[in-house]
């Protein structure tokens, strides 16, 4: 199988990249491991506040529907339920449909593999009933299954606030939110107020000491100023933040740089969202963890510049569009968190000075 542009991942960034490339007449293939398009947007029932200026405010799943419709109106080949498992010696991508593995030759690759949630370790954190906050949201909003009846949330990010509200509305009693810092991390004060109106207590300067239970979690100990508070429950949702998924970049021998604010290690890339490999672009959370609005814009930039590299768009036009889209990222990301935007600028400036270029030492 051959294609002009292979896009890995059908989340918000992969889908906007697909629309940008396919609408310019290129042959585009998306490979997506799940059976539906939209990535993590599918279970976001909250209104997404910080979308690009050319989008109306929408709930996550509504945005997913809209992007899916846009992609379906083009001639994009969607390989749902397919995974990239590695690369052949000649550079073809090894794709599996779970029955076979076949090679796909792509002129350009846009990697939009997203981010994965990070764990927080404490004694007995491996007990059933203890899960990441994203897993709890997926159970509730996508699978329509209540993760439990009585929950505690570890973390107070904006996302943790969203999920706390959704769990409460779904009938889960959120007994507490626990934050190790001195203040709540969420920046959306309206949401923090909603959480307190729901009667959910938020404990700052606190951390989880241990969980207990036979066969599943039954209670946890929260430590606050050397005092221990024991809470009986059946669900613990842990928000450890997210970090970019990098396996594909590693296999492609891309170089990496470290930016804490963007999720840790991320591939090096230039202002055109191209990695240090001429044929590999990237987009979305894989290029640094950010808000959904920013993810959409990075997908557009990667799509435009992949199109330019295949001659489907003039260099001048691509540069003009890219510059104005970077302004959009600046607006959205500064509003989200100026530190994230500064890290992104630093990262792109570091493009000429990669940190990890040769780590293939056995």
């Amino acid at each position, binding site marked *: 199988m051959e294609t002009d542009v292979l896009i890995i991942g059908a989340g918000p960034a992969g889908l906007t990249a697909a629309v940008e490339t396919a609408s310019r007449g290129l042959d585009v293939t998306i490979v997506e*491991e799940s059976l539906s398009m939209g990535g993590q947007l599918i279970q976001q029932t909250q209104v997404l506040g910080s979308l690009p200026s050319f989008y109306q405010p929408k709930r996550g799943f509504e945005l997913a529907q809209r992007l899916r419709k846009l992609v379906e109106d083009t001639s994009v080949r969607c390989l749902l339920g397919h*995974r*990239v*498992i*590695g*690369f*052949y*010696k*000649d550079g073809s991508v*090894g794709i*599996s449909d*779970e*029955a*076979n*593995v*076949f*090679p796909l030759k792509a002129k350009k690759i846009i990697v939009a593999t997203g981010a*994965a949630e*990070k*764990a927080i*370790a*404490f*004694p007995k*954190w*491996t007990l059933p009933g203890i899960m990441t906050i994203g897993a709890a949201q997926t159970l509730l909003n996508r699978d329509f299954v209540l993760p439990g009846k009585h929950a505690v949330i570890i973390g107070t990010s904006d996302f943790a606030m969203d999920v706390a509200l959704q769990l409460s509305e779904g009938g889960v009693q959120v007994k507490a939110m626990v934050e190790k810092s001195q203040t709540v991390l969420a920046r959306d004060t309206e949401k923090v107020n909603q959480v307190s109106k729901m009667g959910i207590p938020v404990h700052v300067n606190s951390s989880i000491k*241990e969980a207990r239970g036979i066969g599943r979690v039954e209670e946890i100990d929260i430590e606050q100023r050397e005092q221990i508070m024991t809470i009986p429950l059946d669900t613990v949702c842990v928000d*450890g933040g997210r*970090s970019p998924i*990098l*396996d*594909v970049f*590693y*296999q492609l021998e891309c170089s*990496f*740089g*470290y930016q*804490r604010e963007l999720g*840790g*290690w991320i591939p090096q890339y230039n202002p055109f969202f191209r990695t240090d490999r001429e044929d590999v672009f990237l987009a979305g959370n894989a290029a640094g963890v950010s808000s959904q609005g920013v993810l959409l814009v990075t997908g557009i930039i990667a799509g435009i510049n992949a199109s330019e590299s295949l001659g489907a768009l003039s260099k001048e036009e691509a540069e003009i569009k890219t510059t104005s889209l970077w302004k959009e990222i600046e607006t959205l990301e500064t509003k989200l968190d100026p530190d994230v935007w500064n890290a992104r600028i630093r990262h792109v400036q570091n493009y000429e000075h990669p*940190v*990890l270029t040769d*780590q*293939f030492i*056995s």
Partner: protein
Amino acid sequence: MDKTTIICRCEEISYEEIEDVISIGARRFDDVKRLTRCGMGPCQSKICSSLVAEIIHDKTGLPFPEIPLPRMRMPISPIKIGTLTTNSTTFSSVKSVLDEVELEDGKVK
């Protein structure tokens, strides 16, 4: 942290075991992996790599940009050997672990 806390769920490696190998010189995820089997189970370090980096940082003071990523090998996620070989007339061209080993005079460099 409590020493018995599990860090690698797949291989059931505790905080104490990781602390021990750091005390004898482990400074990156792959050092810890080779000494303890941490990260060698089904998830291939997808869950524990950031936890281990944090422990290395806490114990040695090494800044995060100096704690490299674990090596990520083909296949990117678990796949049945049967699936990997089906329909493949060019199986030998799949990038294998052996491709990464450099030989000198018939011996591994």
